[in-house]
């Protein structure tokens, strides 16, 4: 299967599940289908490339363990997303000191497929860096909510369920994140 540049949503993944009890997909196929998205998700959640990559590896290790356990999730995409969120939570809780670590690994040009659009092309390198810095400076909750709501396209209720937040809390975090990031974008224009 070729890598796709489209942004898979949680709804489409649920719809593409196999409720009819067909043959479970091969692990290799699941990996190729979701690897890019999970890596990107973890990097955004942790706002760090190295930490995100390690968290994504953990996710796929758990996928192997889940397959070996014989209990097959109804939708692997949704399952992987939830596991990724939990893995990022665990990693942040246990390794807060790693925030001080700023010497990344050697650069490996393993760029994932992006989905830039015409609007984004207008963003200069400096603006992009400023936006990323502003995003990284958000609280972890604000980052998670922004990623799941605005980038992954999840509805408010699902975001709340995944992060164990009320709908109002989700909206409040998103409100603050959007205001802060817009301020940064405006100041860079």
């Amino acid at each position, binding site marked *: 299967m070729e890598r796709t540049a489209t942004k898979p949503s949680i709804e489409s993944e649920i719809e593409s599940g196999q409720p009819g009890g067909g043959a479970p997909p091969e692990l290799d196929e699941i990996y190729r289908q979701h690897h890019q998205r999970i890596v990107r998700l973890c990097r955004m959640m942790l706002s760090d490339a190295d930490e995100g990559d390690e968290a994504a590896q953990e996710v796929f290790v758990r996928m192997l363990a889940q397959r070996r356990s014989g209990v097959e999730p109804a939708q692997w995409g949704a399952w992987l997303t939830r596991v990724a969120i939990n893995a990022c939570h665990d990693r942040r809780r246990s390794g807060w000191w790693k925030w001080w670590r700023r010497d990344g690994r050697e650069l490996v040009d393993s760029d994932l497929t992006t989905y830039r659009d015409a609007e984004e092309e207008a963003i200069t390198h400096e603006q992009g860096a400023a936006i990323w810095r502003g995003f990284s400076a958000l609280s972890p909750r604000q980052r998670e909510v922004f990623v799941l709501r605005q980038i992954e396209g999840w509805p*408010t209720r699902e975001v709340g369920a995944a992060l164990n937040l009320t709908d109002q809390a989700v909206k409040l975090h998103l409100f603050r994140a959007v205001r802060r990031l817009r301020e940064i974008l405006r100041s860079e224009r």
Partner: protein
Amino acid sequence: MNACLNEKELTRLFVSDAAEMPAARAHVAECAACASRYEEMARDARIIAGTIASAAASRATLQEYTAKRAVDGWRSDRPYARVAGWFAGATAFGAAAAIATMLALGWRPARSPQMASALPDVAKTAPVAYAQDQAGRITFDPISAIAYDEGGSAAAGSGDAIFTSYSGDDGNLLFCAPGDDSGMCAPTAGNRG
């Protein structure tokens, strides 16, 4: 709702679900100015989301941004890190200043007051102790920690011990005073020597 939405209300509308804030939605649908501002907000959100997603998808871009952030971090991104840095710096400076002050006042780390007062006594008494030693009154064997009497026989054998040492079960060095034959110091205990 007739009045135009301010920035805060517009953002609240943007983050709300479709069924919420019907009056505000109706206003935006009718007011061209608010509709334009709302569209601008949605466009900004798309740009931001796209930029973040693209950065996260590209390791090279992310590393570049992160490296830049590390330079700028002390200025803006991590106020807690800045506070921690100030605190650590102030602590180090305070410790250095305290040590410098103590040195200036004459304090020397190698000699505590007790040691400084004790050293002259040792210097005075050492020759006397050596002379007594030579006279054969008491001889100390530093290796076995056994005291000998004038006759030179070991205390463990003769029972004339001034001090007799033995090692207890836990390996600690213990001492029996002369005439103390009770308990662990009893001659039959097998601990002497």
